[in-house]
Every structure is written in structure tokens, then in C-alpha cells.
């Protein structure tokens, strides 16, 4: 036990003496949360919109003019056919498309009802909600004016569709994403680098030739990064609650359980990488390319999984961070408890069990060659 | 003596209060093999950096290959070769790619590089290894190759910084034959080493202690002067006088 304690102490020396790396590890989550927080736009100005107007009558013209007159919107295209809507979104030409029903004025006058559809690109969920909100209120005030002027209760039926992110996940769903990323970075990447460094300095050879059980080496490497990860999780949650005002809606206990499971997965991945490579640079590249990129691209952190092609959706199921992020979103943002994340919990448990077993098997009590 | 290719007079380098190189004066002639010895921290590396045009002395005079060490360091670099045990060749380049690279760095034409590559590969008996990654060569071969590359552009002087650490006697001999051959062609060889048996290959030797040159002569004359059986004894006698602690 004394051996183990001495080993952990040594690991902390390594970390504290590399001041630059330590600062990066501790400050990075703060910077990420703050950057993401500011990147969320709540102000809307001159947003590009497109109009599809099959009626082309006085009412739709008046509505179009009011949209154009507001400082929120700029009409960039008048569409000839609804087929081009998808393309417009994909090219990013417009963020909102207003689709009027056919024979708008005629229907309005004869039946008292006409329809307008608002199509929004919801990949930025926060902004799309704001946009449709503004557009509805412009249309709503037009409806009210009309009613007051004519004394007849007109109704403009408004249908809003959020494209590409139908459930309009909360804008703050990046907080779980950052948590997933930080854990991967610190537990997997830093652990693998720390173990490989022993190979590079030649100390691994001396340690293996000593009576110290190799499992101590692995555990002692993991402990400091576990501590740093927990510290970082704390920072992220505090920032999220007090700076971004995103409260932890669900159970804190549930959040802790799922996080520890995920940390185990990350540590096992780090250990596997360290068994496979011989240099710190290789460890960094493998964990960077092999772990970070999928976490950012395929875990739902940035791009919603539902809007990915089926093949990528299937692939994303293999990425532990996807399950972790999904579970944290449910607990933290939607306010659910552990029972609601049983699927994520079991997938992560299975992954943790498998990876820890494999990585311990891979770790050698002798040298590779 | 033959024409001096290295000439220094009271060359001094200070870092703050610390005098790394303390008024050293010596000359090295063309085609001479000159051993530059000293314990760790005696000031060898600093002196060598000045001579290679990498560092400006604090005071004193000096020329290398006829160029002034204060004003013409770029010219000096063109006319010297350098090899150290730590860095010499790119391990992940092939043998001929290393040659082309270093030839190119010293501004040789493709034709010159091509001809020279052929000559060297033939001389070393490496013709079959042209396309081998340097990483895959045995250490002794690497060192021979590294030396050949360091004199690829026919410099006036080649600086060898502890070139043969860790090689066995057979390879060491092959290496020294290459050095003799280069010196015979008129290339001056300036070599630092920790191995005294190696020092005996040199025509003349200087031994630095605490930044000063404490002895300078041929191995035989030094042995006589210090009444020593071998260079190891000479060195031990001098190095023990060091006041300056290595660390």
C-alpha cells in the first residue's frame, strides 16, 4: 500500500511540475463552457428568410411586406416551387422559409381561415425557436389588425416545423457535450500519455523489473486524472448553473453514477492506447484522432444524431460519449431520473466491463519485444 | 606549420558572471586531426559553438576557414561540416535522400549531388543500401554514413562532436579510417571525445579545464610532459585540478 501511495504522489508531482499542461487541463473546460455560452445567439437581426407564395394576392403581399419591414428579417429569395426549400436550407441561404397556403386571401375572406407554414433550420435550436417566435408574432398582429378593422374574427392557421432537429433539443445541450469531451480528453488522452511517458523515459523497464505489481502502475496513473476529471466536472456544473443559468433539473446522484461509469470507460481506452503505442506523440495522435474527433462529430454534441445518415447513426452507437451525453441531457436538462436512462446505463456498463477487461489483458508484465 | 584554418586569440565567452570560455588561443592547420578534450562543463561545447558560427564570443579574435567569427558567421557555416552522435541523419529518410538533402542545404547542384552520392556509396560499400531507411542501418553504418554526409560538400573543416560513443572496436576503426582519409585529402578534422584511446588518433590534442586550455600538444609529447603512461592518465591529472563543479 505504501508503494501505491508513493506512486500516486509521484504522479501528482509530474502533473504539478508541468505547470503549462496542468493549467490547460484546468482552464480548458472553463473556456469551452464560456465560449459555447457566448456562441449561443439570443439576439436576432436581419436574418435571411425566403418566401414561397402560391397565392400572390393582397393579403400575402401585405404579410410579406410586414416581415420585410421588421428589423429581424431580410427576404433573400422568393421561391417558385416548394421543391427548392430543402436545397436553400442546405446551402444556408435562408434560416427560415415562410410558406403561404394557396388562395390565401380568398380562403381568409370566405372561410375566415387561411394557413401559413413556418419552416426553420433547427440545427441551431435556440435561434430557430426565436425566429419562429418573431415571425408568428408579426403574423399574429396582422391577424389581429385585420379582425379589428373588419369586425370579423379571421384566423391565420400557423404551422411551425423545425427541420433537422425535430425535438428542438435545448440550446444548452452542449453542456453535457463538453463534459463528455473533457472526460475523454483527460482520462483517455492524458492517462495514455502518462503511461507511455514511462516507456519513453525508460523507467517502465526499471519498474517492470521491480517487485511492484504492474496493476499499481495502471491504477496510480488513473487516480490523479480521475481527481482532475471530477474537479473539472464540478467546474463545468458550477459554471453551467451560475453563469449560464442551466440548472441540474434531475437527480445529482444519477449524474454522478453515469459520470463515473463513463470515466471508467475513458480510463480503459487510455490504457488500451498506451499498450499499443510507444511514443507520447503517437498516444496523443491516436487519442486525438481516434477519440476526440468522434466525440465531437458523432456523439450528438454538435450535430444531432437524428439528422445523420443511417450509417453514421449506427456507427455513433459504438461511441461511448454518445450514450453518456444522451444520459446527461436526460438527467440534467430534461430532469429525468436514473430509471429514464436505463438503456444508456446498461450500454455504458457493458462497454466499461469489456474495455477494462481487454485493457488489463493487453497490459504486459514484460516488455513488448 | 601548415596554413591555419582555425585561428583563435584570447577567445572568451561569458554568460553573466560565468566565464564559460576563458581566453583560449590556438591554431589548427589544414588537414590536421585536432582533438578537443575536456570533462563535462569544461567549456568545450561553448567553444565549439563559437567556432561553428552559432554563438558570438564576448571578446578575443578568431577566424575559421579564413572568415571572421564576428562578422562572417554565415560564410563560416558554408565552409564547415558538422556531425554529432545526437543528431546526424534523418532516420526516416532513405540513405540517398539524406545525401540529396544535405547536398541541397549546402547549395550543391543536382549533378554534383548525384556524382558525389555514387562515389560515397561505392567507397563505403553501401551501394545496395541506397534505398534503405537510415533507421534500419546498424549504428556503426549510420556513423560512417553520417560522417560521409558531413563532408559531402567538401568543407574545409569538419567538426565531430563525440562521434563514436558506444561503438565497438571494429566499427570504430573503420570510422577512423574514414577520418584519416578525409584528413589526407586536406580536410581539417576537429573532434571532441570522452574516450582517451580515441584521443590518441589525433595529431594534436588540447585539454580544457575550467574554460581554459591547460594542455596542447601531440599525444606523445603530452605523455612525456605529464610523465604519464597514456592519455587517460594525462587527462585524469588535468581534470582533477578542475575547481569548477560540473553542476
Amino acid at each position, binding site marked *: 500500500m*505504501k*508503494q501505491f501511495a*508513493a*506512486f500516486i504522489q*509521484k504522479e501528482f*508531482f*509530474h502533473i504539478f511540475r*508541468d505547470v503549462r499542461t496542468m493549467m490547460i487541463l484546468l482552464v480548458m473546460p472553463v473556456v469551452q463552457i464560456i465560449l459555447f455560452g457566448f456562441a449561443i445567439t439570443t439576439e436576432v437581426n436581419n436574418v435571411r428568410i425566403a418566401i414561397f407564395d402560391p397565392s400572390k394576392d393582397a393579403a400575402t403581399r401585405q404579410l410579406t411586406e410586414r416581415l420585410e419591414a421588421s428589423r429581424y428579417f431580410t427576404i433573400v429569395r422568393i421561391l417558385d416551387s416548394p421543391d427548392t426549400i430543402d436545397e436553400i436550407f442546405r446551402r444556408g441561404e435562408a434560416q427560415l422559409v415562410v410558406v403561404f397556403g394557396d388562395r390565401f386571401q380568398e380562403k381568409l375572406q370566405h372561410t375566415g381561415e387561411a394557413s401559413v407554414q413556418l419552416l426553420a433550420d433547427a440545427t441551431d435550436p435556440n435561434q430557430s425557436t426565436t425566429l419562429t417566435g418573431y415571425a408568428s408574432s408579426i403574423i399574429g398582429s396582422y391577424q389581429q389588425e385585420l379582425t379589428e378593422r373588419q369586425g370579423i374574427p379571421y384566423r391565420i392557421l400557423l404551422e411551425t416545423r423545425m427541420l433537422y432537429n425535430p425535438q428542438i433539443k435545448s440550446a444548452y445541450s452542449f453542456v453535457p457535450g463538453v463534459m463528455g469531451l473533457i472526460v475523454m480528453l483527460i482520462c483517455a488522452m492524458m492517462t495514455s500519455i502518462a503511461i507511455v511517458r514511462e516507456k519513453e*523515459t*525508460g*523507467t517502465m*523497464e*526499471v*519498474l517492470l*523489473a*521491480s*517487485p*511492484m505489481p504492474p496493476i499499481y502502475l495502471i491504477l496510480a496513473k488513473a487516480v490523479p486524472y480521475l481527481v482532475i476529471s471530477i474537479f473539472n466536472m464540478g467546474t463545468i456544473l458550477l459554471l453551467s448553473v451560475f453563469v449560464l443559468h442551466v440548472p441540474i433539473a434531475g437527480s445529482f446522484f444519477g449524474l454522478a453514477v453515469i459520470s463515473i461509469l463513463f470515466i471508467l470507460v475513458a480510463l480503459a481506452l487510455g490504457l488500451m492506447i498506451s499498450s499499443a503505442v510507444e511514443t507520447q506523440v503517437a498516444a496523443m495522435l491516436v487519442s486525438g484522432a481516434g477519440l476526440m474527433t468522434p466525440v465531437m462529430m458523432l456523439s450528438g454534441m454538435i450535430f444531432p444524431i437524428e439528422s445523420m445518415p443511417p450509417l453514421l447513426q449506427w456507427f455513433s452507437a459504438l461511441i461511448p460519449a454518445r450514450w453518456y451525453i444522451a444520459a446527461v441531457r436526460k438527467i440534467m436538462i430534461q430532469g429525468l431520473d436514473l430509471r429514464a436512462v436505463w438503456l444508456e446505463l446498461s450500454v455504458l456498463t457493458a462497454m466499461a466491463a469489456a474495455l477494462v477487461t481487454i485493457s488489463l489483458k493487453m497490459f504486459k*508484465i*514484460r*516488455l513488448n*519485444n | 606549420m601548415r596554413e591555419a584554418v582555425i585561428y583563435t586569440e584570447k577567445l572568451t565567452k561569458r554568460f553573466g558572471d560565468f566565464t564559460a570560455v576563458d581566453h583560449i588561443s590556438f591554431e589548427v592547420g589544414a588537414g590536421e586531426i585536432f582533438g578537443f578534450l575536456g*570533462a*563535462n*562543463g569544461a567549456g568545450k561545447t561553448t567553444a565549439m559553438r563559437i567556432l561553428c558560427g552559432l554563438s558570438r564570443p564576448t571578446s578575443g579574435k578568431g577566424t575559421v576557414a579564413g572568415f571572421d567569427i564576428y562578422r562572417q558567421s554565415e560564410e563560416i557555416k558554408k565552409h564547415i561540416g558538422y556531425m554529432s*552522435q545526437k543528431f546526424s541523419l534523418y532516420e526516416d529518410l532513405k540513405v540517398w535522400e539524406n545525401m540529396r538533402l544535405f547536398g541541397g542545404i549546402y547549395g550543391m547542384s543536382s549533378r554534383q549531388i548525384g556524382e558525389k552520392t555514387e562515389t560515397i556509396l561505392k567507397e563505403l560499400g553501401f551501394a545496395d543500401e541506397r534505398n534503405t531507411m537510415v533507421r534500419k542501418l*546498424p*549504428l*556503426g553504418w549510420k556513423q560512417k554514413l553520417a560522417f560521409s554526409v558531413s563532408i559531402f560538400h567538401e568543407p574545409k573543416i569538419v567538426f565531430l562532436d*563525440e562521434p563514436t*560513443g*558506444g*561503438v*565497438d*572496436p*571494429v*566499427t570504430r*576503426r573503420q570510422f*577512423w*579510417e574514414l577520418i*584519416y*582519409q578525409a584528413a*589526407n585529402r586536406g580536410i581539417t578534422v576537429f573532434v571532441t571525445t*570522452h*574516450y*582517451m*584511446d*580515441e*584521443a*590518441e*588518433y589525433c595529431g594534436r590534442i588540447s585539454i580544457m579545464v575550467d574554460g581554459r586550455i591547460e594542455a596542447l600538444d601531440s*599525444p*606523445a609529447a603530452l605523455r612525456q610532459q605529464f610523465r604519464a603512461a597514456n592519455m*587517460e592518465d594525462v*587527462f*585524469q591529472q588535468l*581534470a*582533477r585540478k578542475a575547481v569548477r563543479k*560540473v*553542476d
Partner: protein
Amino acid sequence: MPAVQLRNISKSYGNLRALDSISFDVRRGEIFGLIGPDGAGKTTLFRILTTLLLADNGEAAVDGLDVVKDYRAIRNRIGYMPGKFSLYPDLTVEENLKFFATVFHTTVEANYDLVREIYQQIEPFRKRRAGKLSGGMKQKLALSCALIHKPSILFLDEPTTGVDPVSRKEFWGILRHLKEQGITILVSTPYMDEATRCDRIALIREGKLLQIDTPRRMTEQFTESLWGVRSNRMYPLLTDLRAYPEVKTCFTFGEFHHITVKADFAEEKLERYLQERGHREIMLRTLVPTIEDYYMQIAQTDTL
């Protein structure tokens, strides 16, 4: 029971045969030198004996314990200094020593007697980080770390490579003292002058054991007539000597070229021959062979 026993140990990496059926014993309490060039298999042999590698064939025992079955027990009893600098550069001298003591279930105080002589030399720098020490100091610290648990056998893989002559001499003095305290030392080196400081040496080359004996008896086996030659032009001298019919072998050896000669060799004849070829300041003298001459000889006859 010998301290180390090897029986037909072989090890290959793919097609490369790193060790080819090596057998020898290291006696208790001796300094045993493993001499050979880079790539001879010295490091592989060390790693097999320190239980870090498994041999393909053969058996080996350290302190009477099998290197495969009893690897845990062996790891308690040996001290190992790998060829590469193997300390933590970001830990101080003191911290390194303390750490390795704990790893070996002991404390610096408990075994201070054994390392005192060495450690006292680096003690003034005990608060310095190991990465900032000079080569000689690093080597002494590494030796202290390898000794701190009072091993019965010490394995030192090229401990003096890149270290200055003063430190090297001190280092061999330290090894002598350790031997006096009953520690068996297995040390490898590419330097022949260090070979003579060992009690017995084994010459290895390309994975094969060439010879094993005391340094003195090895030089006695050198039966050729050995001469040293020098002149004002050493490089042409080399080619001229090799072209001379009565010269069998000719190698550079520092100030002199060493030649072995045939029975009908005559000193005056060679001198005349060299003078005709334009050599001046010719010196010619008979020599007592050194271990290095012997090594050159068997390395030649054994060209693989």
C-alpha cells in the same frame, strides 16, 4: 550455485537472431563483463535475465530462480540499470531515490550504508531535478536507485556510455567496492579498456558467444607477433602496410597502426619499403597485445 546461469538461450525478432544458443555462468561475487558491439544482443540478454523478456529457447536462472516461473521473486532480488537514462527527469534527486526505495519495499535510511559512497557525491544537488544533472551525476543517481534495495545481483547495461573519463573512472571504483560487499555485477560495455577491469568477460557478436575468460588469459591467447608502426602520413601508411606482403593484418590504433606479421618479417625491410613510399618519421616497435588487439583478431577470423 552460480549467481546467473544460462543454458542455450536463444531469442529471435522475426528473421533477426538476436541471441543464438548462449550458455554461461556468472559466479557469485564477480564482476562479469559482457563485451560486444551495438546490436550484439547484450540488451536482449539483460532483459531476459531481468525477467522483462521471454527467451524463445533455453533456460536461465538468476540467484537459482527460474526467470520465467519465479519472475516475481527475481524482481525482488536484482538491481537493474537499463542502457537508457531511466529516472524521472522532473523529480528531484531525492525524490527519485525515495520513490525507487518505496517501489522496492524499503526506505533510503534502511540501506543508506550501501549507497552512501555514491550518494554523497550527488547529495549537494539533492534538490535538483534529475533531468538537469550532468551525465556522470545521472549515472551515479541511477546506480543509487538500482542499489537502494540491496540487491544480490546488479545488472548494468552500458552504464558508462557518454560519460566523461573522470566519472567513468570513479564509476568503476564504485563497482569494485560493491563487489567487495558481496554483490555480483553483470555489466556490459563496448569499451575494451573497461573490459580489463572485469574479473571475467564474455565477448559476444551478432548473438553468438565468441569467448569467455579472464581478461589476462584472453590476451595470453594472442599468439601473433604484434608491431606498432607510425609515420608522418598515417592514412597512406595504412594502405601501404596492407599492401606489404609480410603484413597479415593492419588496424589503426591511435598513434600507431597495429600490424601482425608473418614469420619471415624483417623490421629493416619494412622500414626501407616505407621510406621508398615517401614516409618520414617512421617508428616501428614490438607491442604487448591488449584485449582490444585480441578482440580485433577474433572479430576478423570470425567474420560472419
